[in-house]
C-alpha cells in the first residue's frame, strides 16, 4: 500500500498529483500489477482532501489503463509500467548522480540543473521521433 501527499503550492491539480504519484510508484516498482490502492476513505482520512478528488484520480488511472475498480472491493493496479523498474537501473542512476555532482561543481544551481535536464530530455525525445 502506498501513501499520497498533496503539495498545495505546486500549481498542479490535486487529482493529477495523485495520478503522478501512482505512476511514479509504478516506475519505482513500489506498485505492481494486482496491488490494491488505498480506498477513498483511507486516503481522505490521511491527507484531508475532498473524496471526489481521489475518485477523480482513480477514474483517470482507469482511463489510462493503469488501474481498474472492482465494485465493493477497491481499485487495483492492472499493469506494471512497460519498462523495467528504476531500481534495476542502479548504474544509470549512479552515472546521473556523478553528472549532477559535476554540474554543481561547475556552479550550476538546482533550478539550472533541473532546467538542463528537462531541456535535454525534451530534445532527446524529439530526436527519437
Amino acid at each position, binding site marked *: 500500500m502506498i501513501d499520497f501527499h498533496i503539495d498545495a503550492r505546486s500549481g498542479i*491539480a490535486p487529482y493529477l498529483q495523485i495520478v503522478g504519484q501512482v505512476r511514479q510508484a509504478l516506475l519505482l516498482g513500489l506498485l505492481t500489477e494486482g496491488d490494491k490502492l488505498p480506498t477513498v476513505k483511507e486516503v481522505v482520512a490521511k*491527507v484531508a482532501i*475532498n473524496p471526489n478528488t481521489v475518485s477523480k484520480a482513480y477514474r483517470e488511472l482507469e482511463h489510462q489503463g493503469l488501474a481498474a475498480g472492482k465494485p465493493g472491493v477497491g481499485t487495483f493496479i492492472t499493469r506494471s509500467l512497460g519498462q523495467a523498474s528504476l531500481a534495476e537501473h542502479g548504474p544509470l542512476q549512479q552515472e546521473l548522480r556523478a553528472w549532477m555532482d559535476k554540474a554543481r561543481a561547475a556552479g550550476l544551481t538546482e533550478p539550472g540543473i533541473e532546467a538542463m535536464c528537462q531541456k535535454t530530455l525534451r530534445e532527446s525525445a524529439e530526436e527519437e521521433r
Partner: protein
Amino acid sequence: MSAILQAHELGKRYRQRQALTDCTLEIPPGHVVGLVGPNGAGKTTLLKIACGMLAPTTGRIEVLGGQPNGGTAQLARVGYVAQDTPTYASLSVADHLKLGAKMNPAWDAKLAQDRIEQLDLNPRQKAGKLSGGQRAQLALTVAVAKRPELLILDEPVASLDPLARRGFLRHLMESVAEHDTSVILSSHLISDLERVCDYLVVLVSSRVRLAGETDDLLARHHRIVCSRRQGSDLPAGLEVISAEHTERQSRFVVRSEGELPAGDWSAEHLELEDLVLTYMEPPVDRGGDTAMQPTGEAR
C-alpha cells in the same frame, strides 16, 4: 436528490443593518461547499438561516428540499456546528454523547464511541478541560453521529493550530467519504478550502459575488498581461473581473465561458486564493469600462 441549498432573492435585515441581500443560489447535492468572504459579509447569517435558527426577512430558501425551520424531521437532517465549535464546559465527553443520543432519533452510538476512542479522548474528561482541537473534534463527533445529510460548519477551524486543523479536516473528510454527507463550511483559510471543497461561494457586503464548482471556476478565469489597453478593447465574450494599469501595461483578470481566445498577451490560470481575493476586493477602476459589473454565476 434535491439541491443542498436553494435560495431565491433571500434577504435578512437586522434593525439597522442589511446582513444579506438578494441571495440567489442553487448548490447541487453531493458537494463540500466552501463559503468565504470578509468579516461581516453575511456568512454566519446565511448559515443560521440555512439551519433554521434565523428567519429570513425576504425571499425563499430550501435546504435539502425542505424548509429550514420545518420541524424536527428537517432538523434531524442537518447538523450544525456554530462558530468556535461550542461544547458544554462542565459536561464530560461521555455526557455530550448521552445528550446527543437523547436529542437525536437517528443517533449512531457506535460511530460516536469509535470516534472518541480513535481521538483518544477520555470519556470522563470535562469538555472545559479539553484542548481547542479536542473540543472541536468533540463538537464534530456529536454533529456527525447525528448522521445528518448535510453538515453546516461556521468557521470550525479558525481558532485551531495547524496540526489540530488538519486533524479536524481529516475527520470531516472521512465522514463525507463514509456517509456521503454534504457539507457547507465557512472559513478564511483558503488553503484549507482548496483541499476539501469542490464548490465555492464568495459572499461580499451581504451579496453573493461568485458561486460554482471550484474546478470549473478555476478553468474559466485567467490572468492576462498585455500592452496597455482598456478592458473594452478585449475580445467579446471576456468578462473583466479586475483591471490594473501602469503606463505601459495592463493586467486583467477575466472570466471566459469557453476557451480563452488567443491574443497578443500572456495568459495564465489563477490560484484559488487569487481568484477569491479578486472577487473580494471592491470593484476597481476598469480603465474606462462601462457597465462591466463584476458578477459571478449568481447575480
